[in-house]
């Protein structure tokens, strides 16, 4: 194994808020740190793509068709002579947008419904969780393919389809955590002081129950990037000529025997990004584990 052993926080004397402790533990986890840097880099590239990309991603230069890396086109050119590096940079926008919106919306829905189901129990719980079960009973990506096939390809539809298959998982985790947290005596104490249900949820249940859901969200981000790439690869996502990582792998595949790098670079980018999000999730899980804190 690498140096992934969780390190204990030695200094518990000073009154540091939990989030600093989490950062402190995270910063001692080298793999998580590398993953965090990759994630930050990808985000920066996506945000600044119009300023740092050397070429217009849709500008064709047929003379350079399928050319390998050169000093001008660092990663080479595709079949229409478009600059691969620029296309990858613009593709990051699509991937991260999909990841952020899918994870963000699913997280909101999941936290809200999961907390409701776990807190109130009974009929509310049954109603919410049966719907969750229905969604979970479908193989996720096939449901997404089906949904996009029905409503038509496009970025918005991909995002909606991925949210559709993502929220039940968050809901289920949040419900389980809520069930655990609500039994705490401090919740009873809060009720004894006259707290309303919404107060208890906002101040006690959600802050205490959300850690595992946040970890799930980090891993879910990588998953969403991969799912979008998959859908774009199948032609259901972002439509050409707009660049997306999945679409670029798909295009590259046609020329894989002549110019293998054309599929390899976007493929590698997807792999590294997804790996980074997963490792970040792993590291966060360790950092948020209360048993590692003094």
């Amino acid at each position: 194994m690498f140096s992934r052993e969780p390190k204990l926080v030695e200094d518990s004397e000073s009154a540091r808020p939990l989030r600093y402790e989490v950062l402190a533990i995270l910063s001692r986890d080298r793999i998580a740190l590398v993953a965090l840097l990759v994630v930050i880099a990808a985000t920066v590239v996506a945000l600044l793509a119009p300023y740092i990309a050397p070429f217009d991603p849709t500008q064709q230069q047929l003379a350079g068709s399928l050319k390998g890396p050169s000093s001008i086109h660092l990663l080479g050119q595709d079949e229409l002579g478009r600059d691969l590096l620029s296309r990858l940079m613009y593709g990051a926008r699509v991937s991260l947008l999909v990841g952020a919106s899918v994870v963000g919306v699913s997280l909101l829905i999941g936290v809200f419904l999961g907390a409701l189901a776990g807190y109130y129990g009974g009929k509310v719980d049954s109603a919410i969780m049966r719907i969750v079960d229905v969604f979970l009973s479908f193989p996720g990506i096939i449901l997404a393919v089906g949904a996009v096939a029905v409503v038509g390809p496009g970025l918005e539809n991909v995002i909606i389809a991925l949210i559709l298959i993502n929220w039940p998982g968050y809901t289920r985790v949040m419900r389980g955590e809520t069930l655990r947290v609500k039994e705490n005596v401090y919740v009873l104490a809060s009720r004894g002081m006259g707290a309303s249900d919404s107060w208890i949820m906002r101040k006690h249940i959600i802050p205490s129950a959300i850690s595992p859901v946040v970890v799930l969200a980090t891993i879910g981000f990588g998953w969403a990037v991969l799912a979008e790439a998959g859908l774009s690869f199948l032609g259901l996502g972002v439509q050409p000529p707009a660049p997306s990582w999945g679409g670029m792998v798909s295009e590259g595949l046609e020329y894989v025997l002549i110019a293998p790098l054309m599929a390899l670079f976007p493929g590698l980018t997807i792999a590294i990004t997804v790996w980074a999000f997963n490792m970040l999730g792993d590291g966060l899980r360790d950092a948020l584990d209360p048993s590692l804190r003094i």
Partner: protein
Amino acid sequence: MTEPLLEAVDLSKIFPVRKGLVFKKTVAEIKAVNHVSFTIGRNETVALVGESGSGKTTIARMVGRLLRPTSGRVLFDGSDAWKLKGDELKNMRRKIGFVFQDPFASLNPRMRVRDVVSEPLAIHHLMTKKEREERVRDLLVRVGLSKDDATKFPHQFSGGQLQRIAIARALALEPSLIIADEPVSSLDVSAQAKIMNLMHQIQQDLGISYLMISHDLGVVRHVSHAVFVLYLGTIAEVAPADEFFQRTLHPYSKALLSAVLVPDPEVLQKRPPQLLKGEIPSPLNLPQGCKFNTRCPFMQPKCKEEEPPLAPTDSPEHTTACFYWEPIEKGEIVPRF
């Protein structure tokens, strides 16, 4: 006696035991509390004692409107606590504070002490942020902590200190009653004494009533005005505290009292603890007749058939639920073991 602050009238709690996945059937009943009545006067401490499983916590939660009684009423300041709604309910919540057994569990580990202690103020939208901070500092000093502790987290304190924080929180709304459910049983002996003294001092200063729940008579001895002994959800004996520690009538109270640890081996030799045999019976299957008959050294045939009512004795305000308290006291019934 002054006008009572809190009156519990004929409180009972039955927990149904349900089985089945979809159609839940009630297969048994746990009679946790049976027809318990008591009153707490203003500025008075009432001790509720009994071993685990005797229904002490259930009573505390019913009285504090955290658990609905199966039957019976709770009168707080003259009004039925379980019928209050809206502002009246909020008002009642303000007047009742809670201190729980395990301070590690009753304080949210994610909240700073400042937020813990001011939570009741925030819930009731009282004071500005600045006034709250001021109040938190005052409360911390009152319970014997430093005002600088406000920014710390619960994991930076010991059990005794945490219980002080819990007491500060209970005091934040200036309640007239504090329900303390085993407030010291998770602490070591020296911390126990300190916390009990603190609670006593607070009562002297602020005029607060306590419902003090404990399994240890030694803990409540010096602070309570009246003692209620509970056995399997039924009151076995009620007495003013001074009298109780001089003269107990119910065999169960005698056993409880003799189990109090005495830090003096000579006394211990003169008065060896009279230990009860066996466990408290399951409330799922209560014994017939007197609930204590399975463990009572003075058990008579009648005890297996009839349940003794809580009846007056020769001393005022001292009642006991034993048919034979008089012959037992006179030594006319010889203990079986």
